[in-house]
């Protein structure tokens, strides 16, 4: 009994201490420090997208390292919060905390599309620049935020060149598609099929699987044979499961594959998949095999500091931070939303994926590369086969 009492006291003390001390810890100073620029970041540090959270943090810190965490004579303070997994209310809560408690000058993130949508009405209602890594879709609601910027291009624009390439260069005339059952994947697939159909190609079958699906064999058993299969599935786990089940059914020999984001196939995992994925085609902005100096520099410094290989999304994070830094330099560290917006729209930079600038609708434009998995120097790699220039999103209807 006595033991229990002691334990109880310890537990109560522990709980009350955690609760009481936390609010007074770092980052809660209320005063508005004009000497430093506070940047609030929402990243998925837990949950199913956690693998990118860390990578994003690394890339952003790398970009900041290159300017010594200073811009226009002011110190930069990065405040990173966890946006959680698929519980989208957490991202909103943290966004409010960053804005209202930390008084950040601008907000980066969140990452997950659902979280971005839940945060959007809030960020639209306050004057603050919000640079995002989620991609805007065709959903008009999404563009209500006049201070919102999107670093990557839109979903359909991303895959549009791939559709052109498949028809023109590879002579594909019929495709079957499979994708996750939600907007994001719809639009990835749509980009491909729009381009493909406009040339005269035919889509003979479209299948949609639940987002968390791990067993694709039933869908593959249902597959109608076409010239190629297009995968609009998001998320590495789904893609990995789909690939290995595709292989287990012996389909790689029968039908080539086109995928939407090559970045969702991380390099270590590609090596595990082995030679069977050689010849898979995809489209992406940044590839580790790019030869331009910016890409090489990014690759080298990332590998040196973190001992791992960055992917396209990491490059988005790096690019985003670089662009923000350039804009802040132009404004002299001023984070007033209108000034900063103007500066951001004027930014023209050479970044790892190539020349970058925002479209009028505030969506990032960089060249896109259709690429192919090949074995280079004993390692499986995405090798660019054709480059398509960056251009304003074809669904550009923003105010």
């Amino acid at each position: 009994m006595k033991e229990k009492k002691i334990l109880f006291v310890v537990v109560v003390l522990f709980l009350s201490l955690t609760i009481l001390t936390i609010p007074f810890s770092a980052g809660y100073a209320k005063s508005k420090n004009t000497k430093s620029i506070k940047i609030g970041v929402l990243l998925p540090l837990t949950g199913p997208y956690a693998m990118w959270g860390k990578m994003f943090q690394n890339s952003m810190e790398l970009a900041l390292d290159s300017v010594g965490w200073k811009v226009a004579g002011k110190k930069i303070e990065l405040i990173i919060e966890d946006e959680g997994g698929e519980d989208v209310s957490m991202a909103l809560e943290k966004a409010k905390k960053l804005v209202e408690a930390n008084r950040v000058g601008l907000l980066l993130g969140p990452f997950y599309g659902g979280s971005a949508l839940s945060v959007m009405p809030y960020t639209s209602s306050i004057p603050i620049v919000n640079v995002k890594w989620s991609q805007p879709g065709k959903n008009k609601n999404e563009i209500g935020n006049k201070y919102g910027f999107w670093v990557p291009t839109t979903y359909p624009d991303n895959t549009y060149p791939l559709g052109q390439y498949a028809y023109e260069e590879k002579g594909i005339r019929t495709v079957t598609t499979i994708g996750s059952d939600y907007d994001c994947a719809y639009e990835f697939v749509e980009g491909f099929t729009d381009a493909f159909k406009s040339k005269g190609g035919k889509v003979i079958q479209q299948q949609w699987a639940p987002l968390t699906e791990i067993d694709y064999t039933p869908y593959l058993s249902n597959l109608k044979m076409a010239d190629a299969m297009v995968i609009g599935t998001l998320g590495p786990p789904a893609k990995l499961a789909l690939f290995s089940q595709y292989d287990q059914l012996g389909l790689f020999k029968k039908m080539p594959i086109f995928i939407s984001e090559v970045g969702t196939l991380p390099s270590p995992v590609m090596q595990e998949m082995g030679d069977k994925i050689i010849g898979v085609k995809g489209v992406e902005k940044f590839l580790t095999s790019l030869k331009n100096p910016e890409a090489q520099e990014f690759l080298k410094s990332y590998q040196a500091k973190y001992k791992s290989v960055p992917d396209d999304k990491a490059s988005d994070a790096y690019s985003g931070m670089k662009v923000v830094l350039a804009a802040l330099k132009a404004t002299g560290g001023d984070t007033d939303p209108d000034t900063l917006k103007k500066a951001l729209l004027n930014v023209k930079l050479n970044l790892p994926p190539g020349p970058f600038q925002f479209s009028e609708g505030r969506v990032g434009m960089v060249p896109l590369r259709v690429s192919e998995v090949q074995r280079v120097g004993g390692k499986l790699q995405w090798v660019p086969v054709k480059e398509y220039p960056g251009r304003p999103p074809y669904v550009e209807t923003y105010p």
Partner: protein
Amino acid sequence: MITVKRLYRPAIFASYGPYMIGLAIFLIVPPFLPMYVQSIITKVAVFAIFAMSLDLIMGYTGLLSLGHAAFFGVGGYMAAILIKNFEITNFWIVAPISIVVAALFAAVLGLIALRVTGIYFLLVTFALSMLLASIALKWNYVNGIYGMAGIMRPDLGLAGFRLNHIKFYYFVFLILILCYFLMYRVVNSPFGHALRGIRESESRMRALGYNTWLYKYITFIIAGLFAGVGGVLFTYQSGVIAPQHLGVTVSTLAMLICIIGGIGTLWGPFVGALVIILLEYFSSINAPERWPLILGGVFVIAVMFLKGGIAFHLKKLWNKMFLNGSFKG
């Protein structure tokens, strides 16, 4: 006359003191807190209502539900549908309709769930809530997987009166107090005593001529109704409602709140909500990558060492200090 009063005062203080102190803290402190903490305290109040409603069926009736979030989510979704899809902004129209819909869902699902008992009840409620969640996930009318976002603070229909952070907090707190007293009336009525009888021994109550099924069914609906209140307020507070809010994670969060606070007392869930919501929030800020570990650890510690809940131990402590150790559960 005077001596009597003097004798009485400490006694009143001793028995109602904790409530009075708690009430005072929650009324006086919030305006001095930073705005985002006010928002979190509002969330505490919302989850207190939700957890209390779970306590009605879990603590007082002894039914283990792993799907209580279904009614929470239905209430929240209904409010969001009315606001976003029908563009009805008046709180006094939105809230009652949503709450009634939540209660209706409880009435229908209760018919299914109450056909089984014990751990099977837990499983049916779980399956029902997952069913609703997977429907919400697929239904474009409610924005599918993304959930419905962008819901502003309630419009009370008073000209020139807008709720800001702190006023919204007081508004929610007022509803919390109201719900507390309504539920207090329920559990301390003959009906409530019958529920406790059912919890102790259902067969005995049946032998005494009670229609125990009906009692459980009515309680299930009442609990669904108050969960709906929580859901509506949650939608307003967080500004977003998504399929996850119908699912098992929110249900277990409420269950944790009840168990940490103390099952079978109405103010236990209140204390529990305060501890858990703040802990979840602040641990996710201080240890952004490791907060699930901390939260999971608290689950374990709470289950192993806080038997009876914080409310129970607090009350014991209070009674020891002011009622000379005479302890009445």
